[in-house]
């Protein structure tokens, strides 16, 4: 987190890079490895993964904005309490909205919507970025980071649903002869896919680094 603060302070102009950093260079899943709990738990289908990513995006952008707005009036001793209160508020709002949009989706996500409160990505961004930067960059940072999370959880959801249920977004992809790899939609499948994806991303980053050198 300290390094992030430094980069944020070192770069005077904040714009597109703030947004893009969250997607790849500081991807919350593959680089900072935060928010593993929802990532592993609800990536068993594309639909669940997308719903989780959008709920997280809503909470992250709104809380980043709110934290940034009040950053100058919150005494630093109580900042974490105040941040958590802000985050919890938006999570509660997100939960009601989700229930109003689709009860089925709310049921599928189960306990993981309220648990967005303790998603380290969100408190991490509030503390490392939004509490030190103006509103617009904070919103951009929230959008970028949640896009990074969406990218990761969507990939996991797609791999797990295609292999584990033989479908994509609920549409069957293969004929009746396809035997689903049930393990993929169970928790252990989540760890397998995450491990393989992390290996891939790290390899790719190492290769990119060697290329630029």
């Amino acid at each position: 987190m300290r390094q992030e603060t430094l980069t944020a302070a070192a770069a005077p102009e904040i714009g597109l890079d703030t947004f893009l950093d969250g997607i790849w260079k500081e991807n919350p899943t593959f680089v900072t490895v935060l928010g593993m709990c929802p990532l592993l738990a609800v990536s068993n289908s594309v639909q669940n993964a997308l719903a989780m990513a959008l709920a997280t995006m809503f909470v992250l952008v709104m809380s980043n904005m709110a934290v940034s707005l009040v950053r100058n009036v919150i005494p630093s001793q109580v900042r974490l309490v105040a941040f958590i209160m802000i985050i919890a508020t938006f999570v509660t709002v997100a939960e009601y909205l989700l229930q109003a949009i689709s009860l089925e989706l709310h049921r599928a996500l189960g306990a993981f919507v309220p648990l967005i409160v303790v998603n380290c990505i969100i408190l991490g961004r509030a503390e490392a970025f939004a509490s030190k930067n103006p509103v617009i960059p904070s919103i951009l940072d929230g959008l970028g980071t949640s896009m990074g999370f969406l990218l990761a959880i969507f990939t996991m959801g797609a791999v797990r649903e295609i292999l584990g249920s033989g479908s994509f977004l609920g549409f069957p992809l293969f004929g009746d002869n396809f035997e689903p790899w049930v393990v993929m939609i169970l928790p252990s499948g989540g760890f397998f896919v995450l491990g393989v994806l992390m290996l891939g991303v790290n390899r790719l980053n190492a290769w990119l680094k060697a290329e630029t050198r």
Partner: protein
Amino acid sequence: MLRTLIGVAAVAGTLIVVVFQLTLPTIKANKAEALRRAVFDVLPGARKVVTFKLEEDGSLAPLTGDDERAVKYYAGYTEDHQLIGVAIEAQGQGYQDVIKVLYGYAPAEQHIIGMKVLESKETPGLGDKIGKDRVFLANFDKLEARLTEGDATLQHAFEVVKHGAKKNPWQIDGITGATISSKAVGKLLNASAPRHLPPVQKNMSRLKEGK
């Protein structure tokens, strides 16, 4: 310090209350709609539903408005007001958490004619088949639920047997790999049916009338 915290809390609280009030009608409508759809699912052929409530003296009375604590019986009728059956909610402990189901009972034939899982947290891919597996759900298209003389209790309790071992009309063909979850469904039906089917039989005239 205290003032800031109180300020943040006040704004947060107001926001939550506003959103709660705004979304409440939609959420309630969604829940009612989900239940209504489930009632039509477990009572094939039904076009209209009248909700009844079990009174303390054991009689059934039509429920107007909403009563969250009441034991509800959803009577389904055809277009020309013939009683098809009654849908009843039941719940019991599953493998992970409580399983909630809705089942349809045809009082004339004394059969269960449909079952739908409303809520379950059974293992995806294994236990959650109780709500998806077509062979398992076909058990409940016609499952004998005959009451004893005098409508006291079930003649035969439901019995979950190994897949393919079903011999009697009151037996439920279980799912291989989801033994605990299939048995849980049998168990919760066994707990619910002896309690809720006798009032249905005793109040048949009321139910047929639909008022």
